[in-house]
């Protein structure tokens, strides 16, 4: 009995001594390479949107001049932004402002004409009736607010898709930083483009894609930039997007690379109604809108060339 206890005691003593010696700090004067060098680690979390349920945001640009409320000008820029959080994909679907369609505010006219009498709800209802897509939110801006927002961001690096003569000068293809006024001029350029409003609508989509690229880079570089973008956006738009949702969208945008965003414009032909030039939308849009409504995005292979008008390829 005694011997057994003695043996157990010795074993425990040896274990205890070994463990203690192995864990008690060594004299700190010794310098050298640490046992463990973590190097670099990253932690990243933010409230975001998830799930396969698509989100649709109507993005509008008003032509309201000073004295006219922004939400009662003509809706000269119209884009459907569809987002599928789970797929990390999005699509911008432009609709030419001259599209001749039934208006929710009454009668048939150019699609941009629904906003002056009906405000954003009238314009949104018109587009919902046309496309079958239900919008979760809208964002509306105007000439001056758009330019001011870009300036608030320190300019926008826009990836110009091809050499083009703009209404305010020549643009070389490639990324270039533009001030608010320059970005507005680029987004409004129409007269020198062979397909006029179709090309312009595509360019407006490129502006938004460039903004996504820049936002992702700046947010990744410094998280504080999320607030810079939120502030610039909220100060210069009218929107139904609450701050909570904008924060989630901002974090979601970090998981949607620009290459996962498709940009297209509704297909149609130009014509005349009375004395005004209009666009008659093609029936083929209906199938595209149906696909978009189902998933929130369209893959490049699902988009016929005619929906991505580009003067260089004769689209």
């Amino acid at each position, binding site marked *: 009995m005694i011997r057994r206890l003695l043996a157990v005691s010795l074993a425990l003593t040896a274990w205890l001594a070994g463990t203690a010696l192995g864990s008690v700090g060594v004299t700190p004067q*010794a310098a050298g390479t640490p046992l463990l060098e*973590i190097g670099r680690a*990253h932690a990243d979390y933010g409230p975001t949107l998830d799930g396969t349920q698509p989100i649709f945001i109507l993005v509008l640009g008003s032509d309201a001049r000073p004295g006219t409320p922004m939400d009662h000008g003509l809706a000269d820029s119209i884009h459907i932004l569809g987002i599928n959080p789970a797929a990390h994909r999005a699509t911008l679907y432009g609709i030419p402002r001259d599209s001749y369609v039934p208006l929710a505010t009454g009668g048939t006219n150019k699609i941009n004409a629904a906003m002056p009498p009906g405000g954003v709800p009238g314009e949104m209802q018109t587009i919902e009736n046309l496309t079958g897509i239900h919008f979760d939110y809208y964002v509306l801006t105007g000439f001056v607010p758009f330019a001011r927002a870009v300036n608030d961001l320190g300019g926008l690096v826009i990836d110009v898709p091809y050499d083009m003569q703009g209404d305010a000068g020549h643009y070389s293809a490639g990324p270039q930083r533009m001030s608010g006024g320059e970005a507005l001029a680029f987004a409004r350029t129409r007269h020198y483009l062979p397909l006029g409003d179709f090309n312009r609508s595509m360019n407006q989509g490129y502006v938004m894609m460039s903004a996504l690229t820049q936002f992702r880079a700046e947010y990744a570089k410094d998280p504080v930039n999320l607030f810079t973008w*939120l502030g610039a956006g909220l100060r210069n738009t009218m929107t139904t997007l609450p701050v909570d949702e904008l924060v989630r969208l901002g974090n979601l945008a970090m998981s949607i690379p620009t290459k996962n965003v498709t940009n297209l414009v509704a297909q149609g032909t130009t014509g005349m109604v009375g004395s005004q030039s209009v666009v008659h939308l093609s029936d083929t849009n209906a199938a595209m809108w149906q696909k978009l409504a189902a998933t929130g995005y369209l893959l490049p292979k699902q988009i016929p060339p005619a929906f991505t008008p580009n003067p260089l390829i004769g689209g």
Partner: protein
Amino acid sequence: MPGSDGGPGSLEAVLATDGKTPLREAASPSTGRSQKTAQRSKVARRRAILGVGAAVVVVAILFFVFGRGGNGIPGIGHSQQPTPDLVFHQTGANYESTQIDGNKAAQLATAKQVATSMKDQLDQLFKTSYLDADTWGDTGEIEKYFTDDAKGHLPTDVGVLTLGDNASDTYTYVQPQKSTVSAKVLTDGHGNALRGVSSIDFVAVATHKDGTYSKITVTGGLFFVKDGNTWRIEGYRLDRTEKPTTAPSTTPSPTSEAS
């Protein structure tokens, strides 16, 4: 079991007081001086061995229970130095307005107030997660600083939000160096705070068990949202780097003091 019946040699008997020593109970008036001496010596040896054995077992149990996994007995496994306090140095507090024509004075006042609240949270968070050896790697101890959604991600990011999951296997002490924080608060035009973000530069020198040192930095942003009367962290984008360094200065930094 031999000796467990309370007779001579049993644990109770061996550990008994002088008034009831086994020696006296076992002594016979007829035994000689040499027998008495031998018996006394034998019992004393047994008592000593069992006493040492029991003490070792008790210490071993205590060590096993408290000395593993980061909650060490003072002096064993961790430095005996007290946990230092951490006070981030506030380098700026500003606002980002969501309205063009807002009340600038009200928004700035809000920004300063919220910046202080966020800084106080960060002082405690980093003290708990990086400086206090008793709570290194314990995400449960820092949950209260985060929103319910963010709490679920703490285990994933334990290596950045805390010194590390098994930090006590590597480190013995962490001394904070000058650490800074600047804040930006998203406000409405009336000066109501909608969100806050703290941009931090946390610096500390860690002492390793092998006596070497490393400089730890944690930089990036932590996003806060108001939850009742408290600002809690709803998101973060942080980078941690660690590089070998020399022994830290014994002089406390301007932003850290021993508690």
